[in-house]
């Protein structure tokens, strides 16, 4: 194992522990910034040069030779991770300032050390070629993020969520360990490069499934997503932002590495097509489940966590489409699917970071994340509102922002799969799923933005809310720049990412030309022209309207109450009622529990009521309570043996000795 890992994990820790309380954050920013600059420089070098950069190789403690290398895919992920890490660390300055006099300096030191460790280990994950280094970094990543989640360890809920996260991550880790061990046992090497040999000689799908479980656990793939909505609300906002924005993408990274090593067929049976179809179906299910559950949530951070699941679904649709295209040598489908998936990975890290930063600003200022306590926050926190709106439009994948560019790319591939007549059914399934996900995203995020930022304030905390400090807002500059740049100048970004995607979907010479010429380059140009036209038209229409209004009377008057003269802010539409229509058709996905009583229809003069509904994911029962119940049941059965009767215990001992004697007679032990 290379020494550099230990250096990068221990030296920052010493620096941070040694720094005075107020300087700890700047130490962390310094370390993360320095590493980020070095990593980005290397990554840009790789992207320009094209050849992989060999960083280190040597023997390791287990699993044979270890290689640390940065190819184009690693370079892309390294850049995404670095940008998010820098923004997160800067953001934490403002967010954690409120805790400075509440928590001990050691507490902060541990937190910042874990933040640096999380960044370093994520870079380690995407640069290790597999085997021991990869698993070491993967585990370091889990532990670092666990430490980050339990920052608010005084709360029982936080500890519970963090422990459930830790347990689930280790189930995933066990799957990965088993996968790599199997790979090593059969090929003598545990790097991703050895997957090709393995898949050539042994049945590929079982190992693929093992890796999908391991990586899917991290990515939040259905039905292994249940840690996401628990861990994100419990963690501080900047931690949620880096976990949701980039950490879950390491799962995507792993899936890409494994999936594209699959052969087209093995011993006459198709392999790549079923794998692609599985990922596509999982993507549609993950996406739909995520966005529907997101629409039900009334807690900002839970909603955002479920929406991360939705975006993982979209990325998986892209990867699945790419595999299907590759297996049937439909180059446009393969290239667009892969490019769209990678582009969406990057885009999601931008807008999801920004949304979590926004949620953090709101929490820091009002100490609440429940949608229905807000309303009209746009007036007291205007900058946060504008940034949040930007990210909202982007995450709904609407033009002219970045989310649209990546979803459009995936759509382009799927439509080509349909129009070329090659993979109609699978492409159409992905297309219809993606369009429904897109429509529901608009519902979900209009609910979020509408109930939190618009309307009239429902509580006095909202009226008194203060705009966040400069660091918290300044940190949004990085994701905001990303959102605007990718949205308004998609062509260069598309070309760079398509070149990263190209090696995964071996393209013919004609296919390589498509990136530039009419076929795909033309479509991207169209998207860019549309984006700019849209901006110009909207600005022009708004200015024209303003001009026209100059000569007309503009008055202020109360909101039209349809004849009702005494409306109160409490009467506004809440988030819960906003998603009621969807609940009426999708209530079977959740188990609803209500506290308190709703106002009865027969109450003519309703008294004060307190009513709270929780929509619990039905799958979370399968992943948590079900196992606990099973253990309890087994325990009860076993407890029957403990009778308290000494003669029973003596007889158990006799039976045991008899058993040992019998087994040794038959040479079984």
């Amino acid at each position, binding site marked *: 194992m290379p020494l550099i890992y230990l250096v990068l994990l221990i030296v920052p820790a010493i620096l941070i522990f040694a720094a005075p309380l107020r300087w700890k954050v700047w130490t962390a920013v310094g370390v993360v910034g320095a590493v980020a600059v070095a990593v980005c420089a290397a990554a840009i070098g790789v992207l320009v040069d094209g050849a992989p950069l060999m960083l280190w190789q040597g023997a390791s403690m287990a699993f044979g030779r270890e290689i640390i290398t940065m190819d184009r895919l690693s370079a892309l992920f390294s850049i995404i991770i670095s940008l998010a890490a820098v923004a997160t660390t800067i953001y934490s300055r403002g967010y954690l300032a409120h805790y400075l006099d509440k928590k001990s300096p050691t507490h902060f030191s541990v937190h910042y050390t874990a933040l640096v460790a999380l960044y370093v280990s994520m870079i380690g994950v995407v640069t290790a070629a597999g085997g021991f280094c990869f698993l070491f970094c993967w585990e370091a990543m889990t532990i670092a993020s666990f430490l980050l989640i339990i920052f608010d360890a005084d709360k029982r809920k936080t500890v519970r969520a963090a422990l459930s996260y830790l347990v689930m991550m280790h189930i995933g880790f066990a799957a990965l360990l088993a996968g790599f061990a199997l790979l090593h046992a059969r090929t003598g090497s545990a790097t991703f490069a050895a997957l090709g040999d393995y898949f050539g000689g042994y049945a590929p799908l079982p190992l693929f499934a093992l890796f999908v479980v391991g990586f899917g656990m991290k990515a939040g793939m259905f039905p292994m997503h249940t840690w996401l909505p628990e861990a994100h609300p419990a963690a501080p906002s900047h931690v949620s932002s880096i976990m949701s924005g980039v950490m879950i993408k390491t799962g995507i990274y792993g899936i890409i590495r494994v999936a594209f090593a699959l052969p087209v067929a093995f011993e006459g049976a198709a392999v790549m097509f079923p794998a692609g179809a599985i990922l596509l179906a999982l993507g549609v299910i993950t996406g739909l489940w995520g966005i529907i559950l997101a629409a039900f949530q009334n807690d900002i951070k839970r909603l955002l966590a479920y929406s991360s699941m939705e975006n993982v679904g979209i990325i998986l649709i892209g990867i699945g489409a790419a595999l299907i295209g590759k297996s049937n040598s439909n180059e446009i489908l393969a290239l667009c699917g892969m490019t769209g998936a990678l582009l969406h990975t990057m885009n999601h890290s931008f807008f999801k970071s920004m949304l979590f930063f926004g949620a953090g600003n709101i929490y820091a200022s009002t100490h609440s994340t429940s949608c229905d306590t807000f309303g*009209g926050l746009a007036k007291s926190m205007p900058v946060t509102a504008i940034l949040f709106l930007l990210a909202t439009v982007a995450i709904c994948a609407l033009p002219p922002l970045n989310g649209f560019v990546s979803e459009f790319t995936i759509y382009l591939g799927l439509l*080509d799969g349909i*129009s070329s007549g090659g993979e109609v059914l699978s492409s*159409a399934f992905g297309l*219809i799923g993606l369009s429904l996900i897109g*429509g529901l995203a*608009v519902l979900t995020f209009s609910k979020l933005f509408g109930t939190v930022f618009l309307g009239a304030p429902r509580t006095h905390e909202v009226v008194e809310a203060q705009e966040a400090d400069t660091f918290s807002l300044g940190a949004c500059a990085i994701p905001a720049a990303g959102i605007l740049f990718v949205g308004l100048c998609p062509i260069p970004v598309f070309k760079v990412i398509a070149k990263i995607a190209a090696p995964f979907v071996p393209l013919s010479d004609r296919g390589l030309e498509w990136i530039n010429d009419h076929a795909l380059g*033309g479509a991207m140009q169209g998207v860019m022209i549309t984006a700019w036209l849209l901006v110009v038209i*909207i600005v022009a229409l708004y200015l024209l309207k303003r001009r026209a209004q100059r000569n007309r009377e503009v008055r202020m008057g109360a909101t039209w109450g349809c004849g009702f003269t005494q409306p109160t802010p409490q009467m506004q539409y809440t988030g819960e009622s906003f998603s009621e229509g969807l609940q009426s058709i999708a209530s079977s996905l959740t188990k609803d529990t209500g506290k308190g009583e709703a106002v009865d229809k027969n109450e003519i003069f309703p008294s004060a009521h307190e009513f709270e509904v929780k929509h619990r994911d039905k799958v979370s029962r399968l992943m948590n309570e079900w196992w606990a119940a099973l253990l309890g049941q087994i325990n009860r059965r076993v407890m029957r043996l403990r009778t308290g009767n000494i003669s029973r215990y003596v007889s158990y001992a006799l039976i045991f000795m008899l058993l040992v004697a019998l087994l040794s007679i038959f040479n079984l032990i």
Partner: protein
Amino acid sequence: MKELLNTILLFAIALLLGGVITRVRSILSGRKGPSIVQHLHNVALLARKGSVYSPTTSVLFRVAPAVYMGSALLALMFIPIGNLDPIISFRGDVVVFAYLLGLGRLSLVLAAMDTGSSFEGMGASREALYGALIEPALFAVAATLAMVCGYTSMADIFSVARDLDVQMTIVMLLLAYVLVKIYTVEQGRIPVDDPRTHLELTMIHEVMILDYSGIDLAMIHVANWFKGAAIAVLAANAVMLPLCFKWWIVAPLSLVVAVIIGVVESSQARGKLLRNTTYILTVSALAAMLLFVAYLLMLNIEIS
């Protein structure tokens, strides 16, 4: 030249559709009714009036009509009439068209939430839900057309008449049927929504824009016409694709869509609000089924 004619025709259709619906309704109910251009006068009047804004609202409320109109206008620019060419066209522009409508929807929904009125919140939540559920229908129609024609941009799909057999012609007719259904949902017409009702509780689209007045309201109305024209022309295109695919036949035919809507509105009552989700999901399911049937037809599998 073709682009210019296309644009002029699109605007003409957009301005006429609403009038035709009103005319058909008044003729069928035996009234004299307003003139076919009355709605234009109404909107012109609105544009000349002053505006009232609620103090609850933010800047977003004032920008939203511009976003709504801008996105609808741009969406209209992708639509070809018969063999004419639209102004903008590129691979996959059907997706851009659908998402531009989505942007318009988001802007109005947020503006409705901005007023802090429970009525408008109600309308917004319904509009967002119905918009989400109808989205798959639009994409399934686009996918069917893309599959049958082998292209992914609207200009290429609707460029020349396709030589299709009888079964496929029926599929095209059904696609137009689905598009008319999409029109009723997107435009808030009977049986999904009834703009004439006097109870805000039962309205969808109209209740969302209760607080708009003057030029803002005018812009929203005009944007609605654009949206309606886009979908009506698509429906007419789909019908004529296997037949005589010329602009001078498609353009009048898209006004027939308005006639159909008028007839439906005169003979039918508004559906129960609770049934709307079922209704819209059925339309989406029908569109998905059409895609499947068209695929089977492409494979030359006999459906008995």
